[in-house]
């Protein structure tokens, strides 16, 4: 058995939706084996629709906060994963990261329409993130 949890940091620009949902999923699916964190190049706030989309399927991320990545720069990570294209381009080098991955997801906060329509977009992105977390981290080789 693994003695220490693998440390994973999810990054996106605002740390408000995709990286927050990814953090929530990893903790939910395999919090016993992974330590999940998230940060952004800028700190904003967790979007209420991200909280709602996760709440719909029973995962509470309302206690998570939006943070900048500075605090994590010097820390060791097994995986640093950017979940938006901007962050992939603008993110600094993490000297302590063993692997750097990029997962591209659409930005749900750009969705337009009624609240319900926008929530549906958050839901779709939420499900896409789950599949990726499941396939590459939870079921992965590491």
């Amino acid at each position, binding site marked *: 058995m693994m003695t220490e949890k693998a440390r994973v940091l999810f990054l996106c620009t605002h740390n408000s939706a995709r990286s927050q949902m990814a953090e929530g999923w990893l903790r939910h699916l395999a919090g016993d084996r992974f330590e999940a964190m998230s940060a952004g190049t800028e700190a904003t706030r967790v979007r209420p629709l991200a909280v709602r989309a996760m709440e719909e399927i*029973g995962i509470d991320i309302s206690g998570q906060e939006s943070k900048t990545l500075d605090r994590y720069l010097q820390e060791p990570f097994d995986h640093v994963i950017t979940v938006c294209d901007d962050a992939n381009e603008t993110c600094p080098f993490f000297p302590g990261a063993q692997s750097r991955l990029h997962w591209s997801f659409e930005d749900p906060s750009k969705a337009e329409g009624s609240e319900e329509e926008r929530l549906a977009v958050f839901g779709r992105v939420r499900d896409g993130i789950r599949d990726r977390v*499941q396939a590459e981290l939870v*079921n992965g080789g590491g």
Partner: protein
Amino acid sequence: MRKQKVLFLCTQNSARSQLAEGFLRHLAGDRFEVYSAGIDPTDEIHPCAVEAMSEVGIDISEQYPKGLGTYLGKMGFNYLIIVCARAEERCPKSFPGVGTTFSWVFEDPRRDEEIPYDSMLERFREVRDEIELKIRNWLEHPEQELKKLREERERERRERLAVTRWEADEQAQRLEDLPEDCQERHHFPVLA
């Protein structure tokens, strides 16, 4: 507090998933919003299902078979619980809008149709009792079910890894066995 949503899934949504829906609503309807569906729903719920449940004081006569598309992708579920092996085989591995998926496989009470009604009813009673026990256990020890799920995933992951390693070893051996001057030797992918 917001109720947790649970969807029970089997192939026809005429027996096991209906019993499970009835039990969970009866035992913990204050905490759960309960649904059931089938991949290939029949027209009607099996009469033995209704009778077996009425014997334990639960009325499911208003429940009816529905297709998977009735709910899935249209709303979010805390839990998707698959209650038959065929549904598990035929289902996609990933569902939209599902937080946690459990597989609780119960034997099909209708495994051969040509038996007298009373014998069929007896089988429904058996599966009814198994389902009740399983649901009661889950309600009392929800963390145990999650632990089992995680252990199962970890076991599957290790099995897959073992297969990958075995294949890599095989390939490495093949490479070893090739003659020194073989073309393929120089084009062989480097193995991790």
